């Protein structure tokens, strides 16, 4: 299994009560809650954590993009990727840039090509729709989200693979001269990963494009079902998908015993699930961004908006893995065999977790977990290989 190290870079020093009072860490939580002295410290700690994870043998480093939220401090993920590009030896991924939010997708083609060149081809490109709250923050019309995403994607791929200059005449974007310098180091272009919360349309599209599908944080049974769906969609598209096309986004926290792990993770995990993540469907699902069927499915989950989740709830649903080395190994192996994926996008820091604890967690994962999974494949794939 390829275990990447994934950082959200939350504003961990946030006043949690301010989030509770605002009802959300997104869109309307005032940035007067942000202290740049604390933020500067966090940015540097987080970059240290990523370099540390690279030195410990994680397969690659992942940053992502979120806007106007305490949930993640990377509105421009290329800045973080740039800071890491010459410091880390493993893969480097931006998962991903939110294509519909920009008015010139060629800036993303340029940014990713630069990172691919600097890393001499260790770069992985991520494309996402952006999350619903960001359509409120950016003013981009959510009813145009899918159309803008697809047109931006097609333009970027064409800019990477077809010699310029050429003309782009689209519905949302128009360019007389498409001719970006540099072009990607990897040919025809860097590997493409697409994170999604599991909408059928996205799963199908990623399968058809033969890209890697990344399932964002979700109860594990939903992850497994979505991966089943991906394999079905690949079959329909006329090929058998590889476990390397399936990535599960999770978090892992390892301590000496299950009890100690649960006790130490509780405040940080509960802050992450209840304060940093927004679970407000009205904010997350603006009209047109999600289909009416998706909105109804979320609305039908009773208590989705109001019920606080305890650490036990989160662990019971298999959203993340917490425990002793043995527990974590067993759970991750069972997950890999059940859902037949070969990529793990693993956070070692989440919510309010402080630097010292993250460092200890990273060491524990490097010593107790990574070696066990380095050459491990999903059970069925192993059988097929034998």
């Amino acid at each position, binding site marked *: 299994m390829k275990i990447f190290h994934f950082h959200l870079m939350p504003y961990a020093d946030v006043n949690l009560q301010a989030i509770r009072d605002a009802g959300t860490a997104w869109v309307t939580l005032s940035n007067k809650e942000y202290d740049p002295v604390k933020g500067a410290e966090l940015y540097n700690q987080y970059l240290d954590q990523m370099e540390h994870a690279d030195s410990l043998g994680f397969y690659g480093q992942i940053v992502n993009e979120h806007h106007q939220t305490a949930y993640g401090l990377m509105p421009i993920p290329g800045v973080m990727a740039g800071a890491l590009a010459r410091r880390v030896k493993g893969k480097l991924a931006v998962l991903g840039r939110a294509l519909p939010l920009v008015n010139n997708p060629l800036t993303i083609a340029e940014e990713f090509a630069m990172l691919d060149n600097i890393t001499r081809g260790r770069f992985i490109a991520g494309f996402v729709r952006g999350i619903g709250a960001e359509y409120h923050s950016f003013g*981009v019309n959510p*009813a145009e989200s899918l159309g803008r995403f697809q047109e931006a994607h097609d333009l970027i791929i064409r800019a990477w693979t077809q010699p310029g200059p050429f003309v782009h005449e689209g519905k949302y974007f128009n360019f007389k001269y498409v001719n970006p310098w540099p072009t990607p180091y990897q040919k025809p272009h860097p590997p493409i990963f697409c994170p999604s919360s599991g909408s059928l349309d996205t799963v199908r599209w990623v399968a058809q494009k033969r890209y890697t599908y990344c399932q964002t944080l979700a109860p594990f049974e939903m992850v497994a079902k979505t991966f089943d769906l991906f394999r079905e969609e690949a079959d329909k598209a006329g090929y058998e998908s590889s476990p390397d096309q399936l990535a599960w986004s999770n978090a892992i926290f390892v301590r000496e015993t299950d009890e100690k792990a649960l006790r130490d993770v509780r405040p940080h995990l509960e802050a992450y699930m209840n304060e940093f993540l927004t679970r407000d469907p009205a904010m997350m699902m603006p009209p047109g961004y999600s289909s009416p069927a998706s909105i109804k499915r979320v609305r039908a989950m009773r208590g989705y908006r109001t019920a606080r989740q305890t650490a036990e709830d989160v662990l019971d649903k298999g959203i993340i893995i917490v425990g002793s080395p043995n527990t974590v190994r067993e759970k991750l192996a069972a997950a890999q065999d059940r859902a037949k994926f070969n990529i793990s996008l693993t956070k070692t820091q989440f919510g309010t977790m402080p630097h010292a604890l993250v460092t200890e967690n990273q060491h524990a994962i490097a010593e107790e977990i990574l070696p066990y999974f380095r050459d491990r494949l999903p059970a069925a794939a192993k059988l097929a290989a034998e």
Partner: protein
Amino acid sequence: MGEFSAHAVEVDGYELRVARAGAGAAVLVLGDVFGPGGIGGFHAALAKKHAVEAPTHPGFDATPTPEWLDNVSDLANFYLDYLKARASRGVHLVGLGVGGWIAADLATRDSSRLASLTLVNAAGLRVDGVAQADVFLGTEDEALRRLTHDPAAAERAIAETLTPESEDTRLLNQQYAARLTWQPRLHDPHLRKWLRRIEAPTLVAWGAENALFPKAYGAAWRDLIPGAKLETIAGCGHLAAFEKPAELAAIVSTFIAGQRVSA
């Protein structure tokens, strides 16, 4: 008046759904894309004295979506074609909310078929520096509370419209509403330049407590359309046709009666 009856009228190859009732001067009511929508007490009151037509905007209420539907101007051109196809003259055009935006846009293009224009809490303009409620950020019941003034009216709107049976239609309608109004939010920055072209006598009717388009918006419409007059409805939010149907119908009927044009 009689009951409203449903008709299908072909315009530009599209089968437009139109509700009709009453007799007298021709009144075309373009509805809002927010709030309860449909035929209500306001329409019924107007139909006591006038021949009222109320189309369902293409794409809304589970009607087919035309390929050409991207923005409000598309609907303005479409309804101009509707008037032309019906060979309508002397029409009293009434627009509610986003329907007012469509009506104003239509009238800047060609007001020759209009006997009068009434804009009720119309979208379409932006008045700089005037704080507006957000109709998209929140739940459906929160939106209805922001669009009404009297909490009892909000509760009535919630009870009548937020039903499980209508959920699919509402979600699709919200999608079209976003398509038409999200960015630039609820206005066309170019519309104000051409409002002086409107030649029809114009009434601007405004809810005194409209949180979506506060009173300054009503004044802006009045000032930008030559000869327009402004009537304010006390204790009324954005959804005037829902919250104050009789008062609004009386204001509109009086205005129409004041125009010496035969249908």
